[in-house]
């Protein structure tokens, strides 16, 4: 037993030494997630004025002004000439609800399509003498928002003016939605790249082979790999949280014990998946592909950046059983919905069981040589 712990301690120490002696790794582990939280937190915080670009195709002949500007001016909006040639803009909103500036960039229809292709505009507005028509991809929510905004501003105002309020209370902002997801994604990435990729590389460089050519305890080895990753992931998440607390005043409203349990369960689950992923191959390229094949769909679907409720209805039940969805949802409910142990217990049990079973299978089929 003593020997087991001696091996475990030195294997764990080797991981930490390898980690803190690589400044680049320190950056990608700690600084990058903070930078991402900061950039996205700011980008979606609504602090700055939003801007929408529209390709403006003038289709009127005799008059000097088409329906678009006539209509907007009739409703009291000022058309501004921008510095770029012939570009006009209008500014909508108020201090209370925030401002949106729409830029109308003149183009013929062909170059307007080019602008859409290149992402320079999301919507084409064809301006006739007495009406306008909108051309855009209905699946593009940004284009749809611009369309709704312009139709609203061009329509005759009715007597009831709905008021718009900005949500700034902690818990209701984008950063509050995003941070728990980012921590969950960090746990997944840390395990998948930190465990899978490292082990595959050690196999390809025949270091694993060299290690098991000694009487090394394989369980001590795997346990040290998982433990090392959990400890690193803990500090990574803690630093990210402290940053969000200091900068965005994001607080944990639920149970800290529940949060720690969810964190641990998530780590066990993704460590298991990482060990299974790395169990057979000795090629880094294959490892890269496998890790991406597992992490990318979850990163996109599991509601880390945006809610998965925007996906088609039939897909949502499948998304909900993805480990990252379970982890991110539970984290989010503790962070912003004041959830306690009771609410997250099913998720904790599922993630722990899944991780344990997968680790067991991975260890059984593990190719050491």
């Amino acid at each position, binding site marked *: 037993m003593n*020997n087991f712990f*001696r*091996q475990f*301690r*030195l*294997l764990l120490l*080797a991981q930490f*030494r*390898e980690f803190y*002696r*690589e400044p680049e790794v320190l950056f990608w582990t700690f600084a990058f997630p903070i930078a991402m939280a900061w950039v996205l937190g700011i980008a979606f915080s609504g602090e700055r004025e939003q801007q929408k670009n529209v390709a403006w195709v003038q289709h009127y002949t005799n008059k000097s002004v088409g329906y678009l500007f006539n209509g907007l001016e009739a409703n009291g909006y000022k058309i501004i000439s921008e510095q770029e040639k012939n570009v006009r803009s209008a500014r909508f909103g108020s201090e209370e609800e925030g401002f949106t500036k729409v830029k109308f960039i003149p183009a013929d229809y062909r170059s307007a399509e080019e602008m859409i292709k290149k992402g320079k505009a999301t919507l084409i507005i064809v301006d006739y003498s007495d009406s306008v028509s909108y051309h855009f991809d209905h699946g593009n929510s940004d284009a749809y928002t611009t369309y709704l905004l312009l139709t609203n501003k061009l329509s005759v105002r009715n007597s009831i003016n709905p008021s718009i309020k900005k949500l700034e209370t902690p818990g209701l902002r984008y950063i509050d939605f995003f941070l728990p997801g980012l921590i969950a994604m960090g746990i997944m990435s840390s395990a998948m790249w930190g465990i899978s990729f490292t082990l595959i590389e050690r196999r390809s*460089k*025949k*270091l694993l*082979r*060299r*290690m098991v*050519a*000694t*009487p*090394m*305890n394989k369980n001590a080895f795997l346990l040290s790999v998982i433990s090392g990753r959990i400890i690193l992931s803990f500090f990574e998440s803690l630093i990210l949280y402290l940053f969000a607390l200091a900068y965005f005043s994001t607080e944990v409203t639920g149970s800290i014990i529940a949060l720690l349990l969810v964190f641990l369960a998530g780590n066990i689950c993704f460590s298991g998946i990482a060990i299974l992923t790395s169990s057979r191959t000795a090629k880094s390229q294959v490892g890269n592909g496998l890790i991406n094949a597992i992490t990318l769909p979850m990163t996109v679907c599991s509601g880390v950046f945006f809610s998965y409720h925007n996906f088609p209805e039939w897909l949502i039940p499948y998304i909900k059983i993805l480990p990252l969805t379970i982890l991110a949802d539970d984290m989010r409910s503790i962070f912003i919905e004041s959830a306690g142990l009771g609410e997250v217990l099913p998720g904790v049990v599922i993630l722990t069981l899944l991780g344990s079973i997968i680790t067991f299978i991975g260890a059984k089929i593990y190719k050491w*040589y």
Partner: protein
Amino acid sequence: MTHPIIQVTSVSKAFKEVRAVRELSFNIYPGEFVALLGPNGAGKTTMMEMIEGIQFPDSGVIRIDNSAWKENPARLRSLLGISLQETHFIEKLTVKETLELFASFYHESHIKISEVLHLVGLEEKSSAYTKNLSGGQKQKLALGIALLNKPQIILLDEPTTGLDPAARREVWEILHRLRQERGMTMILTTHYMDEAEFLCERIIIMDKGQILAEGTVDQLLARFNKSEKIEFGTDREIDPAIFPKDNLLKYDYLGIKWELIVNDIVNYLPGLLTEMKQREITLRSLECKKMTLDDLFITLTGRSLNE
């Protein structure tokens, strides 16, 4: 002779279409230094890895100190010291930390790292990251790891491949010293004939998964009946009829030079030179040498060891 410490009996191993090792049998006795000599693809590493317990034979039996791998793997791991062909280490660990890590895998709690560092001549590099070691230093570290548990048997797979001559010589010196001081048994694979000759008393020549010849250097070269080789080039074409017949075993024209296999160079060469002088033939090159293991390999297979 005493009981063999390693017994390999009718061992075969195939990978898909390739039969890497075919019905191989040999014994290694305690204290012997034995070389498995052969070109790339001869099956040396596969054979070695089966002895190391890293791979298992399709058929046949390997017994080490009377145990098979499936019977008591932990005991056999403790008996063996292994240096694999081309090992990478954890790059940001120092030499000393690497040795400490590997030492923890053995049950002996009193492994002296400083002793191992001294043995392989890496004391000055003990604080260097393994990433910054030269090829020779990495090989010495691999050797140090192999020696951590004071093994009875040491198995080295191409320990000097890719090293420059000075580094090779240093590794040889360490192994030579180990032999004298520790009296351990060693098997090494190599395709360097001089390495096998310098380090090992017994050589097993392998090709295509089979043993071609086996014995001490003297026993192997005795196959040539003490024959020796003269190689020379001339300024013009010559008729082989001018070669003195006495002591001449064989001759061959190799495109740019003649190769004569003779019984005794000292007796043969004066006669040959006299014949050439009489015909006013000028020598462009002349080389006299004893037959080597490479020559033996060429005789047996038609190919050189280094091909």
